[in-house]
């Protein structure tokens, strides 16, 4: 049994997630794994994701990981990252597919032809460092309000329950970039690539004991 399982379903590189966790939890055992049993037995689970959500859902199921992820998301400290956040919801406009349906809401694309207040074109993907305006939650401890995190995504989540929302960012309209419920926390940005703010969030996660 490991302290932290990073769910690996073959979509992208999880090296940086593992290394960032090692940096904040040098004594923890960390497994990057596609074994459902290892996910089920781990004390904490990190659920990352890159690329297109339909591919991610397909590969997750191809490895038989769905049940283990559902169980972990309902029972132990669980951190979703990027597509790992989006997959928790009921539906995604990317490929028009159902998600895992753990949280009520959907995943939608940024509109085309976005403009900022100075009428500059806003590109999609939303890529780079944006400010994160957070609500109260243990995982934000020690992170200044409106600190910048690194994002790269073209879709974002629209939860149907406002109580889930734990942070928003603006591009140019506010969008939800972090959600939480009970033992579950999930973010749109990449904490593993967000320097000190990101490492602080990961450290808070590995020390988090939700009731």
């Amino acid at each position, binding site marked *: 049994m490991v302290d932290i399982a990073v769910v690996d379903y073959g979509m992208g590189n999880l*090296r940086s997630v593992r290394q960032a966790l090692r940096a904040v939890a040098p004594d923890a055992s960390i497994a990057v794994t596609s074994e459902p049993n290892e996910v089920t037995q781990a004390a904490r689970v990190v659920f990352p994701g890159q690329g297109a959500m339909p591919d991610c859902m397909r590969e997750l199921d191809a490895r038989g990981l769905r049940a283990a992820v559902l169980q972990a998301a309902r029972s132990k400290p669980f951190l979703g990252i990027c597509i790992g956040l989006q997959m928790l919801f009921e539906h995604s406009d990317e490929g028009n597919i159902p998600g895992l349906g753990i949280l009520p809401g959907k995943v939608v694309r940024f509109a085309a032809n976005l403009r900022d207040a100075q009428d500059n*074109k806003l590109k*999609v*993907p939303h890529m780079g460092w944006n400010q994160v305006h957070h609500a109260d939650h243990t995982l934000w401890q020690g992170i200044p309000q409106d600190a910048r995190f690194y994002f790269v995504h073209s879709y974002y989540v629209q939860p149907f329950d406002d109580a889930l929302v734990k942070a928003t960012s603006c591009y140019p309209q506010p969008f939800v970039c972090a959600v939480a419920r009970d033992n579950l926390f999930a973010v749109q940005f990449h904490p593993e690539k*967000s320097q000190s703010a990101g490492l602080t969030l990961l450290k808070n996660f590995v020390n988090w004991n939700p009731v």
Partner: protein
Amino acid sequence: MLAKRIIPCLDVTAGRVVKGVSFVELRDAGDPVEIARRYDEQGADELAFLDITASSDDRGILFRVIEQVADQVFIPLTVGGGVRHVEDVRNLLNAGADKVSINTSAVLNPQLVEDAAGRYGSQCIVVAIDAKQVNPGQWEVFTHGGRKASGLNAVEWAKNMQKLGAGEILLTSMDKDGQRSGFDLALTRAVTDALEIPVIASGGVGNLQHLVDGVKLGGADAVLAASIFHYGEYTVQQAKQFMAQHGIEVRL
């Protein structure tokens, strides 16, 4: 709101950082791991590594450099140079790169961009374009480190790469590279206006005003520079403060 990114670029050969003028006359600028750590501490938003010789002997050295950097520096890393096959993309991602830039091979085999983006996602595929002005308002794509003309129009090529799945364009002006007289702003503006994906302006930065101009006049989403940082003229932090004073949103 989203910050404009400052990306120090490390041209690497045989495990050392070097810097040339207009793609020739290389000078040694130091150890890549040490330099990467310094830029991270100064607040760099990303780092770009270009393997400028990209010989098979150097490949192993580059992988070790990227691994060492990725273990210590928790910001995005873009790595390019000599990427010919989807396996090259995979190997660089496995070594710790977050994005891989493809230049000559995209021209020789555009399918590579589509395959790599399809396999690993557009977010990690950067197409690097080396462009040279051939007529006012017209630029041609060059390959092989700027030695071969491709016959391709740079703006059209960038649009084509976006269509095939590139997540970002790294645009270098060959006319300006190493000249320290500023970006080719007309080129930057022409490409960024034609695309929906972000554009990194590269080639020609000699002072901090050039970075401001690249964003404000060129419309770049990110600015890349090498020599102004390597030789200690400016820190990344100074560059960001200067940009902030000029009304540009940056991560301070």
